[in-house]
């Protein structure tokens, strides 16, 4: 057992956990942040994507102890002051989901790719989504949502500049 100290969605957290606890189980079962989903548990589907120190990672493929001292952001940490994150808004506006199970991972991956790439065309978005699977096969609207969000966020960043 190890006491893991980290920051989750801006809040300091200090919890004792087994060394073998995967980050996704730590978040879901110990912190009760169940927005992060477990789809395949084999690192292929991307439903468990969270940000660790600002980068998208699969939380089923890292141990909680590895996040010692890290800044972790989950889907619960995106909305601020009751206002949805622009990527969340774009998923709603474009109906970027069907059953919704993959959505948290899709959104966390989308936020990461927009941070790195800014406004993107559909081919780039599809390439960047290689690690996320939608079992409903609802990719068309997911890609539209990310395209829309990437444009909106880039425009608002330009206005602010």
């Amino acid at each position, binding site marked *: 057992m190890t006491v893991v100290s980290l920051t989750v969605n801006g809040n300091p957290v200090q919890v004792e956990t087994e060394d073998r606890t995967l980050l996704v*189980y730590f978040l879901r079962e110990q912190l009760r942040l169940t927005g992060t989903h477990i789809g395949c*548990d*084999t690192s*292929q589907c991307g439903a468990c*994507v969270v940000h660790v120190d600002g980068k998208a990672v699969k939380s089923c*493929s890292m141990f909680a102890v*590895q996040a010692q001292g890290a800044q972790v952001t989950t889907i619960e940490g995106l909305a601020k002051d009751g206002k949805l994150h622009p990527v969340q808004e774009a998923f709603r506006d474009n109906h970027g989901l069907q059953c919704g199970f993959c959505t948290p991972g899709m959104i966390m*991956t989308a936020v990461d790719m927009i941070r790195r790439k800014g406004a993107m065309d559909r081919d780039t978005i599809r390439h960047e989504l*290689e*690690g996320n699977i939608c079992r409903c096969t609802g990719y068309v609207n997911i890609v539209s949502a990310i395209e829309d969000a990437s444009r909106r966020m880039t425009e608002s960043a330009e206005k602010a500049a």
Partner: protein
Amino acid sequence: MIPYQFNYKRATSVAEAEEMLRDSPEGKLLAGGQTLIAAMKMRLANPSDLIDISGIKDLNYIRVGPDAIAIGAATTHFEVATSREVAGAISALAHLASIIGDPAVRHKGTLGGSVANNDPAADYPAAVLALNATITTNKRSIAADDFFTGMFSTALEDSEILTEVSFPIPQKSSYKKFQNPASRYAMAGAFVAKLKDGSIRVAITGAGPCVFRVPEMEAALAKNFTAEAVAQIAVDASGLNSDIHGSAEYRANLVTVMAKRAVAEAA
């Protein structure tokens, strides 16, 4: 899926990691963990201790010199893929790193982990072998030709820690892979390089149990560096991988096709 119990230790230097490794004979090094953790979850790997070397600053660097790019073992695929210096010196190497797994995997997975693990379908071993890279450990330097010894096996000894791979900058090179559409692992990948001394090396990953060179292709390309030169050269299918994704014969054909594409791009 829950792995067996183990003790997690974080090393802050190579010397400390070496000591920890010596103290735990059943221990394993953890870098990005993108292969090891999956194997532990399947309970195919059962290390007593995990020694995390991903935070060792001295193992995270990219140094481009006039003749070679030296990359620290804990450098991630993402860092190599997005390095302008790497792209400028060996664009095929940056490209190779950019098509490993997916973005989240590339944020964690490391060069050293990939090379030390020597998965039959991993991408980096093809670059190491084709570019005639030198592998440095805490004990010695190892030539690429002596490093990969078989499926998931290398010349690394038990308490040996891979610290750096130095890739000679070639005259030209290219990497082409036919990837499994689900896992992005190579069904067959060909790295073709013409080194500064004029020698040609062709390394194939994904097709066999371990990365291998194709001397017939190298000889043909030495005379005529065109895709046509390798178009009629087929590798023997016996001994190649055969699974639900493709037969050995199919992979043997892919080897020639990928080699042709790589040469066409490099030429």
